[in-house]
C-alpha cells in the first residue's frame, strides 16, 4: 500500500495542474469562440482589421 503515498499526491498534482492549465486557457480566450477558428483556414480573403472598440 505504500505506493499509494506516492500515487495520491501525484494524482492531486496532476489535478491541480490540469485545472491551472484550463483556467489559463479560458482566461486567454481559447474558449470564447469555438466555431470560427475551425473555418478560418477556408477563408481565402485576408482578414480585415476589426473596428477598435
Amino acid at each position, binding site marked *: 500500500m505504500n505506493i499509494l503515498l506516492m500515487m495520491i499526491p501525484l494524482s492531486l498534482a496532476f489535478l491541480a495542474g490540469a485545472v491551472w492549465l484550463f483556467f489559463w486557457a479560458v482566461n486567454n480566450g481559447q474558449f470564447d469562440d469555438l466555431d470560427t477558428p475551425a473555418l478560418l483556414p477556408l477563408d481565402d480573403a485576408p482578414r480585415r482589421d476589426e473596428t*477598435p472598440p
Partner: protein
Amino acid sequence: MCCQGCRAAAEWIEQLGLSDYYELRTAPAPRPDTGDTTHDSWQDADSARHVIRDLGADLRETLLLIEGVRCTACVWLIERSLGAAPGVVSVQVNAVARRARVVWQESKITLPQLLQALSRTGYRALPLDAGGLDDLRRGESRDALKRLVVAGFGAMQAMMYATAIYLGAAESLDDSTRNLLRWLGLLVATPVVLYSARPFFTGALRLLKAGRVGMDVPVALAIAAVYAASLIEAVRGVGEVYFDSVSMFVFFLLTGRYLEMRARHHARDLTDALARLTPPFAERALEDGTFTRVGIHQLRVGDRVRVAEGGIVPADGVLLTERCRVDEALLSGESAAVMKRRDDSLIAGSVLEDGPVLMRVERVGADTALAGIAALVGRAHAERPRLQVVGEIAAGRFVARVLILTAITAAGWAIFDPARALPAAIAVLVISCPCAFALAVPAALTRALGAMARRGVLVVKPDGIQALAECTHVLFDKTGTLTEASLSRTDLRTFDGVSHDGALRLAMALARQSRHPVARAIAAAYPDTDAAAVSDVATHAGAGVSATIEGRTLRLGRSDFALAGKQLAREFEDAVLLADDRGPIAAFRITERLRPEACAAIEALQARGMTVLIASGDANSKVAAIAARLNVGTWRARLLPAEKLAWVAELRAAGARVLAVGDGINDAPVLAGADVAIALAEGSELTQASSDMVLKGGRLDAIVYARNIAQRTLAVVRQNQRWALYYNFSAVPLAALGFIPPWLAALGMSLSSFVVILNALRIGRGDATPRDAQPEHSRVEPFPRPTA
C-alpha cells in the same frame, strides 16, 4: 416576498432608510457595485440618452440586462421590487435573455434610482448597450466554463476515492487508509462546493432575502447539508461520506445551466448583431471646419458628422452633401445603392457607397430607426420559451416537495432511531434528483439546435421548435422560395427597334438595384462592367424598380407597374416589362426553375399530414403551373404582401397552425404573422432576425428534417420529465425508509441524469446522418460584418 404584509414591511424598512442593512447582510456574495458611483454615471444626460427611449408624455423606457437571473422566482422578485418603486409603470423580465424592459415616469423616478432599487434586491443591472453586453457575456461564459470544469475534475477525483472506499468495504480496508480516502474526498470536494457551487448559494441567499423558495434554495440547502454532514463524519472518522455525490450533483446542475447559457447566447447573436451595426465612434465637425473623433453616445441632435466612403452612418440624419449612394439593405432587403440627394434622410446602420459626405444628425441612440427595429426584435425575443418555463415550474415544485420530505424523514427517524435521522435525511437529499428536471429541457433544446444547424437550419427563437412541431399548414412563397428565376437571351423581345443588348443594358442597370430573384436573374444576364449610370432609384415592393438613366425615367417590373396604366397585348401580361414614359422598350420572359428539392420536400410534408399552400404575387397561370407540378391543391396568385398576411390570419382563425416559408423579400409581414416562420438566408437581415428560423443554402428538404427534429425534441423533453418523475417517485421513499446505501444513492443520482442526457442525444440521430455535410452551415453569422 410571500404576501402583501411582508412587502409592506419591507417597504417600510426601506422608507426608514434602513435598507443598507440588506446591503451589508449579503456580504458573502461578491458585490462589485455596492457604491452608488456606477449608477450615478447614468445621471449624465449623455450616457443616459444612449439607453433610454422616450415614449412621450413623461414616460421613459429602457432595457436592462440583469446579472444573476436564474429562474422564475428571480423574475418574480425583480418584477415585484421594481414594480413597487414609485413611478414605475411596467416591468417585464425575461429569465432566459436576462433582460428587463422597464417603463417609468421621468418626473417620479430616474434611471439611477431604478438601478439602485434593483441592486438593493441583490441583482446587478446594466442598461443595455452593445459593448457592455459583449463583455458581460464573455465574462459569464468564461466563469461558467471554469466552474463547470472544476466541478467535473472534482467529481471525477471524488468518485475515484469514493469507489475505493465502497470497494474497500467489501474487501478489508484498514481504518487509516479509509480515513485517508475520506480526507482526500474532502480535499477535492471542497473547491467544488466553495467555488463551483457558489452561484447556487448566492442565488439562494437572494431568494431567501425575498422570503421566496425557488430552485436555488433547495439546491443550495442540499449541497450545504450533504457537504456539512460528510465533513462531520470525516472529522469524526466514522459513518459515511458523500463527497462524490455532492460533487456530481454540482457538476450535473452546472452542466444544465451551461447548456442553457449556450443556447441563450446563441439566440442572442442575431439581435446583438443588429444592435452592433452602428459604429462606436463618429467624426464630428467643429466650428473651424476640422473634425474630431467622438464616441457615438456623445453625438447630439444638430451635430454635423462626416462619414467616409464605405463607412456606416452613425445616426439618423439628413444629407448635407450634394449626393451620395447608400446601401440600406438592412432595412429594405434591397441590396445596392439608393441614390440620396441633399436634404434626403440617412438611416443609422446603412453603408455609404461613395463619399465622404457630411450629414446633420437628427436622431441619435435609442431614437434611431435601427434601434427601433432592434428593440422590436428584442421584444419578440424577450418572451421566454414556453418549454423552459414549464420545466422550471416543475423543477421548482419538485425541490420544494423534496425539502418537505427530507424534514419529515428526519423528524420521523428522530422519533424512532435518532442515530439514523441524519443519514436517512441526507440520503433523501442525495438521491432525489432535481438535476434530471433541470437538465431535461436545456439538454434537449441544445441538441436540437445543434442538429438543425448541421443541416442548415439556424434557430433564431427556440420557441419556434415547439411551434414547428405542432404546425399543420405550410405556406410557401413561390418566387425565390420554391423556384429560382433564370433568363436566357432568347426570352427577350424588344419594341421599336431597340437592340437586345441596348435593352439588356438598361434593364440590368435597374435590376441591379433590387434583390428580388427575378431582378437578379435579369442582372446576371448582362455583364455588369458596362452598366449604365442610374439615379433616383426607387424600389416598389411587389411591383418593380424605377430609376432615371441618361435622362429617361425607366420602370422595370410587372406589366401594370412598368406601363403605368397603358395597355399592351395580352400575351405580355405575365412578362417582366422595361418601359419608359412613352411605352414599352422590352419584354422579358423569365423562366422559373423549381428548386431541385422542392418536389421531394413538399411530398414529404404532405406525407406527414401537413397541408401545403402556395401564396404568390405572380400571375395566375404561372402559379397554377407550379402548383400542378408540385401537386399542391390550394394556391392563390396575384397577392400583395398584405393579402398574403390576411390569408395567414384567415387560416389561423380557422384553427390551423401555420408555418410560413419565404425569402423575406416582399413577404416579411407574412413571416411575422405566421405561428412559425422560416426565412431563406438570401433575404434581408431584418427578416432573418424577426423570423423563427433561417434556412441556409435554400435547401427546402431541410424543413422536413427540422420538423422531424422538432417533434423528436418535444417527445424527448416529455420522456425526460416523465423519467425524472418516475425515478424520484420510486427512489425517494426507499431512501426515506433508510434502505439506500450511500453508493447506491450516488449511483442513482448520476444515472438518472445520464439517462436524461443520453436521451437528449438521441435527437438528430438515426435519420440525421447529414447527406452532404456542409460545415459552413454551422456558423451563425447571417450578418455581414460591417467595416468601419
